């Protein structure tokens, strides 16, 4: 039977594990679905660093955006990550390097697997819901990114901490997300059962980026009986 996945995110600066079983719990919220379905209505938004500087925290109105300015001298991490719901956008303050805290954290984003996946749960990034192409600029990268994707993601489920300030896709247990060739298993085991697995993620803009607006799909691939 297919396991049920819940996409969870930590809205606080408390770097503590999720204690729930698929629902909102403590500082952790769950991306919303339409009642009675598994259609998800929330979105992960990378924004900030533009004319407004930073958007309000811990929440701001849904639809708020601050286009990040294309960097001129040095690569630039999009500074703010939100989960946008139908009414509010919830800031995830520990995303990436932890923003202004300039640190790195373990319990930021996660997936609660209710049931059993007979494989690891792999985090992947694709152009769209066909899960078949990686042509958008944030995934192709640029010459300055070494043609790596601009999205760095790191597995933070396990105890040994490879994450550190300044981590990127070249680090141990991290990847520059692109399709199913450059992806990260979130449990690093051959199965996941009734547990939460964790990751962190950010986007770094290079000086040779165009001024793009991309909407890639983050997806999770797994096997089940």
């Amino acid at each position, binding site marked *: *039977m*297919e396991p*049920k*996945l819940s*996409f969870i995110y930590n809205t606080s600066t408390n770097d503590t594990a999720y204690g729930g079983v698929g629902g909102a719990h403590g500082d952790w919220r769950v*991306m919303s*679905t339409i009642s*009675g*379905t*598994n*259609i*998800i209505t929330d*979105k*992960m938004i990378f924004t900030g660093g533009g004319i407004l500087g930073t958007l309000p925290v811990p929440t701001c109105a849904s639809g708020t955006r601050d286009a990040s300015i294309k960097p001129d001298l040095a690569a630039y991490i999009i500074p703010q990550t939100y989960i946008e719901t139908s009414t509010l956008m919830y800031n995830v303050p520990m995303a990436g390097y932890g923003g202004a805290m300039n640190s790195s954290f373990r319990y930021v984003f996660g997936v609660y697997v209710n049931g059993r996946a*007979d*494989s690891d749960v792999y985090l*992947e990034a*694709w*152009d*769209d*819901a*066909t*899960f*078949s*192409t990686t*042509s*958008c600029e944030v995934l192709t990268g640029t010459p300055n990114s070494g043609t790596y994707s601009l999205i760095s993601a790191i597995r933070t489920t396990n105890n040994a901490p490879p994450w550190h300030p300044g981590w990127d896709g070249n680090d141990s247990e991290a990847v520059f997300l692109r399709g199913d060739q450059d992806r990260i298993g979130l449990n690093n085991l*051959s199965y996941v059962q009734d547990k939460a697995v964790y990751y962190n993620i950010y986007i770094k803009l290079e000086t040779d980026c165009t001024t793009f607006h991309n909407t890639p*799909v*983050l*997806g*999770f*691939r*797994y*096997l*089940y*009986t």
Partner: protein
Amino acid sequence: MDFQLPNFKHMTAEDGKVYGGHNTVTSVNPYKCYFIATYPDGTIVKGNNLFVTGWDDIPQGLSKLAYVLSTGHLIEIPRYRAYKPLIECSVGMDGSRIFHSIRVQCLDTNSIVIDKIILRQDLISKHKIGDRIWSREPIPAGLENDKSWKYTS
């Protein structure tokens, strides 16, 4: 639970389409794909669909295994000592979903044969729905304790 597929357009009894910016994927209808397990006494057990397959609930001792796809393909799996079929699925953070394949793990004498049944086709991949890809893997540890392995009679 109501398994709606938000990224599928024009879902019919036969298949579904997913339109992307650079590719169009045609998928089987996951509601209409299931296994058929046949037993020596003539009993036939039919699975449900790709969401709730029903595999873990069937008894041991089957004599034949086959899959029916919504496209009309009937795929018969050769006889092996045991089977454990796995559905390969991707779920987007937006709730979109694609079923890639059924990886039927087949216990052979000294290895596992993977009989992979393709469930999607598109404008790029050379594989079509119903195609099969075979490979071998080592026998995993702890197989005897895994109730999802169903042994043949």
